Structures are given as C-alpha cells and as structure tokens.
C-alpha cells in the first residue's frame, strides 16, 4: 500500500485521477520547498513556487513521459517556475542573514549558528548555476543521471561541475570565515 512509485502516480494523474497528485504533493512538497529556499532565500516566494509547480504538473500532465524519472521532470518544472517568476537578476539575490539575528545564545550554539550562517552566505554568493548543482546533488540527493537529465548534459559533466561548485564554495566560505580559518585550510586559491 505504501509503495506506489512516483511514476505510476503521475501516470494516474495523466490519465485523469487527479487525486493521485495529493500523494505526490505529500511526498515532495518539503524537498521542493527547500530547493526554492536554497535558491532564492525567500520563504513566501518559495511557497508560491511550490504551489506553482504542482499547478503546472496538472496543467502539463500530458507531457509527462513515464520512462523519464519523475523527480527529473519535477525539478525541470521547478527550474522553469523559478526562472519565469523572478527573472535572472533577482534569482541571484543573496540569502537573508537570519542566523546572526538570533545569535545571543550559548557559545557552542553560537559557533554552530555562525558556521551555518557563513555557509548560507557562501551559498548565496555562489553563481546561481553552481548553487543549483549543489542544491540538487547535496540537498535533494538526486542521482547523477537525474541531474544530467534536468540540466541537459552528461553524467561525467555533472561530476566535474559539482566538484568545481564545491571548490568555489570552499573558497568563498574560507574568505568569509576570516584569517584564522584560512590559516587551517590548504585549498584556498
């Protein structure tokens, strides 16, 4: 009962059983929301975009091809929704620095919060293409072939691009961490 695949559910939606989309919503709305939050740093906008993705799934359900991974199709729609709604410039807006605002806590928590905050700021400074690669590969845990299908490239290119994105993130992270942190790193530059 708990094992209906994403693909079979989407096929049911395509054939007119719109209720099957509710199961897909319950399965995927949270990861999708986090995808958007990582991409644009705005919770309200991200909720609007999640809603938009599921409406587009209904609208374009006839275009779903069962031989293609459902998540690849879904993130393709998500990318289009994001691009359509805010355009290239706002797409690269920096994530808000929420963690520092509430940092008046125990020292360990503070350190952890600062690390998280720096990491988020580093993510926000990454070029959008690199940030998206990290979100898909690390936060959404998509397989290489799924990412390749979303981005329209081959698996080898995905691996190399993810490596370069992590490397770029590392450089920004250590710059933001200040000289003391940079002393410990061997990879800057």
């Amino acid at each position, binding site marked *: 009962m708990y094992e209906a695949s994403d693909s079979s559910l989407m096929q049911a939606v395509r054939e007119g059983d719109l209720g099957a989309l509710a199961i897909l919503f*319950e399965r995927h709305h949270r990861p999708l929301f986090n995808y958007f939050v990582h991409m644009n740093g705005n919770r309200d906008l991200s909720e609007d975009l999640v809603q938009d993705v599921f*409406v587009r799934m209904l609208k374009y359900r006839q275009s779903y091809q069962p031989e293609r991974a459902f998540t690849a199709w879904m993130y393709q729609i998500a990318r289009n929704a994001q691009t359509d709604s805010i355009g290239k410039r706002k797409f690269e807006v920096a994530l808000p620095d929420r963690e520092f605002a509430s940092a008046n806590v125990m020292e360990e928590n503070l350190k952890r919060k600062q690390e998280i905050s720096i990491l988020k700021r580093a993510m926000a400074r990454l070029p959008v293409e690199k940030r998206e690669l990290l979100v898909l590969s690390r936060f959404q845990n998509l397989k290489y072939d799924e990412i390749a299908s979303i981005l329209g490239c081959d698996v080898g290119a995905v691996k190399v691009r993810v490596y370069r994105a992590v490397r770029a993130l*590392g450089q920004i992270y250590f710059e933001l961490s200040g000289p003391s942190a940079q002393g410990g790193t061997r990879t800057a530059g």
Partner: protein
Amino acid sequence: MNCEQARTQFVDYWRGTLEDTRAEFDAHLASCEHCRAEAEDLKDMWSALGALPDEDPSLRLRARFYDSLREWRRREAIHRPAFWWLRHPAFQTAAAMLILAAGIGTGYVLRGREISEVSHLRGEVDNMRQLVALSLLQQQGASDRLRGVSYAYRVEPDDSQVLSALLTTVDHDSNVDVRLAAVDALKKFTNNPVGRNGLARALAKQDSPLVQIAILDEIVEVHDKTARPAIQALVTSPDVNPEVKQHAQWALRQLQ
C-alpha cells in the same frame, strides 16, 4: 591516474560511490599531497552542506494546494467535451425558450436549489478531507501518517475508503504510535459493521501489547459481543503477553 583524472572522482569519493576506480584513486591520493589535502578539505565542506538544517513550509501551503486541486477537479468535471448540436442555432433557440420557461419556475425551487448547492459544497469538502487522509496514510514518514489519521476524524462515518485505509494501517503499519492512533480513529466507524469486524480481526494480527489493549478497550466500549471468539483466542494463545491476557479476560467478562 593523474591529478585531473582524480578530481573528476572527488564527488564519488565524498558520496561513497567510488567503485571500479577506487584502487587507482587511493593510490593517487597516497602519492599526491595536494590532491589528498584538497579531497579532505572539500569533503568537510561537502559534509557541512549535508548537515544544513531543512526548513519547514507553513501549514498554509498544504491548504492552498488542496484548494487548488479541488478547483481543478471541479473544473474538469464541468468541462466535458461538448456535442456538436449544442452549437446549432436551432438547438440554441429551443434552449433559450426552455431557459425562459425554467426562469419562471426558478423562484419556486430556489430555496431547494440553495440547499442542494450547500450540500454539494459540503460533499466536496468531505471529499478533499478523504483525499488528504488517504494521501497522508500512504506516506513513508510516521509523522505524516499520524497526520493522516487525524484527518480521518474529519470524514463522514460512512466513508468506506478511509475506514479501509485505517484498518490496513492498524494491521500493517510498522509504527506502534500510528497503529494506536488508527485504533482510536476507528471509534468513529464502530457503528459500521465493517469497522467492528475489522477491529476484532485486527486483534489476532497485533504483536504490540499496547495496541492489543487499545483494541480490547474499544471493543468493550462499543459492547461488540461478536468479538468474543477473537478475544477468547487471545486468552488461549501461548504467545500473548500476560497483561494482555488478563485484560482480555476482563473484556470477556464485560461482554457477557
């Protein structure tokens, strides 16, 4: 393997998916200090990314989704393909005459129609509650399934699909809390013979004393004497927890 080739393998190394090239990759790292340092430093970055906490959307998101899904279903139900004769002028003239006649009679039946529209809307809401309950009960996460059980309270007591999903949950769910919540939710359905029989049947399938006791309490509460054989079987079974047996004997006395 040279440095460039090794770097194309870094992501697999961090993800733990290096397979065929593992030996060559390890050999390169052992001999190249720069690659070794970079692989390890960036591995920390990779791990830190994975530890970033997820954010939860607001409850409004779910409400919005189900509202729009309901709207889509309603629209699709209305927009059936029209027959060609619907657009024919002769038909349209006749239809206009009929509408005029119907308009005269409308005042007489308006009140009745309002009632029917309200009951139609209520039916739609019930239908969406059923959909939410059924969808959540099929999720992997126990907290989602618990929410699904809570939605089951909001459907009509004659909803056989939700009843069936709850009984399946009681019989098969891997999480005891979810099973217990489902047993509680079944109280709503105990006027239904399927619900009562399902509870009695579920008794034999349970291995959790907590759930067994909850089911026994519910059977006693609705005074379902037809469940006596199932309870008797529990008393005589060698594998049942002594406290459950004791409770089963008490239940049998209550049902005399």
